[in-house]
């Protein structure tokens, strides 16, 4: 029987036949490292395509775990991942390794802070698959500082949007958005359909393949949006919005969104009725210790190797992660969430 060599060019033969990539492009892909930030809908889709394409090193980072409501559109996950509440980055890593064992794949269960970004100053490309503008603006500053291209993607309902941010060439995200949009304004109460996700991931990964194979002339230069339900599509050349006084990409950059404050940080998770609390100094949490503490207080708990879930007074539930983060489920109110957090975790 023929024993397939999964590291051979044969598996990529159709992509190599595609003339703008070719064997040369395929070899380039193998040398490249892509960081995918977010392993939700967009992150799953982008990671699968890039893993199948043969990008040599993929890192995928995410702070959340798999839930039943993800399965409709987050293509890497299974019912079993949801029932065991596996962290998405870990579940994604496992699945991607089944898809392509000849590349380096690592999943990072973490909130992507400026400190975490600093570990990736040598990547060739960052794919934005996050769900919030706080993280996007730190990606934006980091990429300007380190001269790394990044591809914005987002979707809501049947709508999607994408843009290629190329330091030194295009305006940056701070140029396009004058201030951080209020979190509430972008939280999804509209739901989402999978085709909108797939359209954005197709756009993001097509542009990624151009960047990684150094087909710079083929790169799309417009801000692109579409609505698959209302049959609309729009493209704007936004190059005139590049601002010389921009604090992220202008003549005297200050990278305001990389300034890390050493204090407990709370963030509402869009559309999840959940607040994430991140301790001021990251530390490894002893989940079995906390499990016994909460059981001693009379609460029901569930634990796997990566997280501990505790059912509090209805409607609240909290989830502790190994890296010290805690999700308070059942509220969008940061003050309420903090008061619950401090009840158990001190101040």
């Amino acid at each position, binding site marked *: 029987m023929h024993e397939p060599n999964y590291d051979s060019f044969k598996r990529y033969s159709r992509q190599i036949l595609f003339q703008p990539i070719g064997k040369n492009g395929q070899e380039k892909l193998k040398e490249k490292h892509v960081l995918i930030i*977010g392993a*939700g809908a967009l992150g799953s889709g982008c990671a699968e395509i890039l893993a199948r394409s043969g990008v040599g090193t993929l890192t995928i980072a995410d702070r959340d775990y798999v839930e039943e409501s993800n399965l409709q559109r987050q293509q890497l996950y299974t019912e079993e991942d949801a029932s065991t509440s596996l962290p998405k980055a870990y579940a994604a890593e496992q699945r991607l390794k089944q898809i392509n064992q000849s590349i380096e794949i690592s999943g990072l269960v973490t909130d992507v802070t400026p400190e975490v970004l600093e570990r990736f100053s040598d990547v060739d490309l960052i794919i934005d698959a996050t769900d919030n503008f706080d993280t996007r603006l730190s990606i934006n500053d980091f990429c300007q500082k380190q001269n790394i291209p990044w591809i914005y993607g987002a979707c809501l309902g049947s709508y999607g949007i994408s843009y290629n941010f190329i330091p030194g060439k295009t305006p940056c995200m701070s140029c396009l958005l004058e201030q951080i*949009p209020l979190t509430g304004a972008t939280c999804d109460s509209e739901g989402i359909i999978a085709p909108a996700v797939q359209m954005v991931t197709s756009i993001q990964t097509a542009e990624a393949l151009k960047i990684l194979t150094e087909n710079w002339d083929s790169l799309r230069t417009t801000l692109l949006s579409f609505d698959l339900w209302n049959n609309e599509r*729009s493209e704007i050349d936004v190059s005139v919005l590049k601002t010389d006084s921009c604090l992220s990409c202008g003549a005297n950059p200050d990278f305001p969104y990389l300034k890390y404050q050493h204090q407990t940080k709370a963030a509402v998770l869009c559309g999840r009725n959940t607040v994430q609390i991140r301790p001021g100094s990251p530390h490894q949490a002893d989940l079995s210790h906390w499990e016994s503490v909460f059981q001693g207080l009379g609460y029901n708990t569930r634990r796997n190797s990566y997280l501990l879930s505790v059912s509090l007074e209805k409607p609240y539930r909290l989830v502790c992660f190994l890296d010290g983060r805690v999700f308070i489920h059942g509220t969008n109110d940061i003050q309420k969430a903090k008061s619950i957090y401090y009840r158990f975790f001190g101040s």
Partner: protein
Amino acid sequence: MNLVINGQQKSVSEHIRTIEELMNELKLNPQLVIVEQNGQVIDKQSYSVAPVNEGDQLELVKFVGGG
């Protein structure tokens, strides 16, 4: 007033004078929208004064956060 918005013919209220009023009618948050009017990108600071006229071709691209 008839406009072409993102390639589609749209009819909007006759009272609309400015880009900002148009966004209000379309329930768009001006802070999150980039506007191109007849091929020109409009400066965000001028949304409240930039006039909208019959037959204008507008591209409205809205930033969303979900992923």
